[in-house]
């Protein structure tokens, strides 16, 4: 696969790793947050941590749209799915996330609710057309990457005059979350050690690199936008090490092959047309974050499931033992959770970070569990 395989070359990875080891100063620590779950996934899948010197530490950020969805909003979807006549459709990732009482969309489907898995939001439209007797609701999640397709679909629904289609919108905004990370009490108290960001690749494809410029400017934190292939990640780490060594703080772009300063103006325009910012939105881990999410504009109100079904978020108590919130704020690690790997596993996840394959807990469990327990095993391998 062109533009994929070249960026997974193990030999080049070792060269990059050697370069990082050579350039990272043994006199200091480098705390780098990969904002994105996509990076988290790549880091574990390819074993990147093994290639880094001990003093270059990666912190997992809140960049997984499944992980940051609060239980209260998932409950809205569960509630809708159970109403007679409703067909709720969403991406496969969301089906296994536990809401209140450990209920999931898969479970309500097993009980008889009409829940469909989508690969593309365009399929939600097709379902609405094929089932005129059903209220088809698309439970939309995602960062800025996933938002333009949703916007396009709402626009098309209007053009088609669909009367039985709506969207439960949970699109969230990356820069707002990055600001929130840097203004938590832990951040202000210094408990959060964070020297720079590995910035998202595909989000930036849409929004461009400009929105990250406040982070070096206001907080002095360098940002390097990086692709999701392992060489991209290593290269970005090298670029961050160099900025930190040089005492620089700026936005750099490793993913020049698809990210410009402006991003995709057409996609941004469409998003702007259909959506507007919410004054505030609840994030798991970060709490209420101002202007951190989108809602459907009044002009498209008929396609807004929250308006159409008069939905109101009911605050719920999240599982207290689940450390997802602290993990998403970058101050804890899955292994700090006493449920990790015992009560909470990918088969029976208690928190969202154990569901999405980009969740830190799932990544630790899937790819990392052997680190503690199975290390001995590697020795035996001849």
């Amino acid at each position, binding site marked *: *696969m*062109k*533009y*994929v395989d*070249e*960026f997974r*070359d193990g*030999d*080049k990875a070792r*060269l*990059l790793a*050697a*370069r990082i080891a*050579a350039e990272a100063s043994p006199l200091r620590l480098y705390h780098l947050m990969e904002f*994105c*779950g*996509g990076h988290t996934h790549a880091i574990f899948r390819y074993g990147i941590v093994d290639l880094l010197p001990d003093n270059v530490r990666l912190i997992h950020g809140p*960049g*997984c*749209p499944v992980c940051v969805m609060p239980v209260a909003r998932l409950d809205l979807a569960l509630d809708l799915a159970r109403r007679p006549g409703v067909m709720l459709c969403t*991406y496969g990732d969301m089906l296994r996330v536990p809401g209140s009482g450990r209920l999931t969309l898969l479970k309500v489907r097993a009980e008889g609710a009409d829940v469909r898995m989508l*690969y*593309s*939001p*365009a399929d939600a439209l097709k379902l609405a057309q094929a089932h005129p007797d059903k209220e088809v609701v698309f439970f939309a999640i*995602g*960062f800025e*990457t*996933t938002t*333009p*397709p949703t916007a*396009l679909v709402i626009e098309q629904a209007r053009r088609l005059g669909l009367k039985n289609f709506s969207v439960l919108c949970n699109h969230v905004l990356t820069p707002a979350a990055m600001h929130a990370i840097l203004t938590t009490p832990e951040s202000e108290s210094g408990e959060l050690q964070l020297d720079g960001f590995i910035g*998202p*690749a*595909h*989000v930036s*494809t*849409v929004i461009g690199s400009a929105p990250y410029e406040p982070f070096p400017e206001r907080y002095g934190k360098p940002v390097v936008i990086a692709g*999701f292939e392992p*060489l*991209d990640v290593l*290269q970005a780490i090298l670029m961050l090490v160099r900025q930190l060594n040089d005492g620089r703080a700026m936005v750099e772009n*490793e993913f*020049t*092959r*698809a*990210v410009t300063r402006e*991003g*995709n103006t*057409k*996609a941004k325009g*469409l998003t702007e047309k259909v959506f507007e910012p919410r004054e505030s939105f609840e994030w798991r881990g970060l709490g209420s974050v101002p202007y951190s999410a989108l809602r459907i504009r009044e002009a498209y109100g008929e396609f807004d499931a929250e308006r159409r079904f008069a939905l109101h978020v009911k605050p719920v108590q999240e599982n207290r033992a689940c450390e997802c919130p602290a993990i998403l704020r970058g101050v804890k690690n899955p292994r700090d959770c006493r449920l990790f790997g015992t009560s909470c596993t990918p088969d029976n996840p208690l928190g969202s970070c154990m569901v999405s394959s*980009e969740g830190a807990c799932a990544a630790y469990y899937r790819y990392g569990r052997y680190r503690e327990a199975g290390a001995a095993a590697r020795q035996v391998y001849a």
Partner: protein
Amino acid sequence: MCLAIPVRIEELVDEETAVAHIGGLRKTINIALVDGLQVGDYVILHVGFALEKLDEQEAQRTLALFTELGQLEQVQQAALEDAS
């Protein structure tokens, strides 16, 4: 976040639709979010939609960086070995 992959445009079907190739697969994709695509272009594909054109020159430049780095390492390695 945001599973996406570069694919090559093989055929422009209509204003919104193209057929893309990737690793021996053909896939119908939505190209409404990206203007001016040509057959042969690579795009970043996400949930069935092209998000942006891939700049092949930039891709080559990034790959070249890794190669240079390799050469640099070799030079340094050689230097080290010479020194020892």
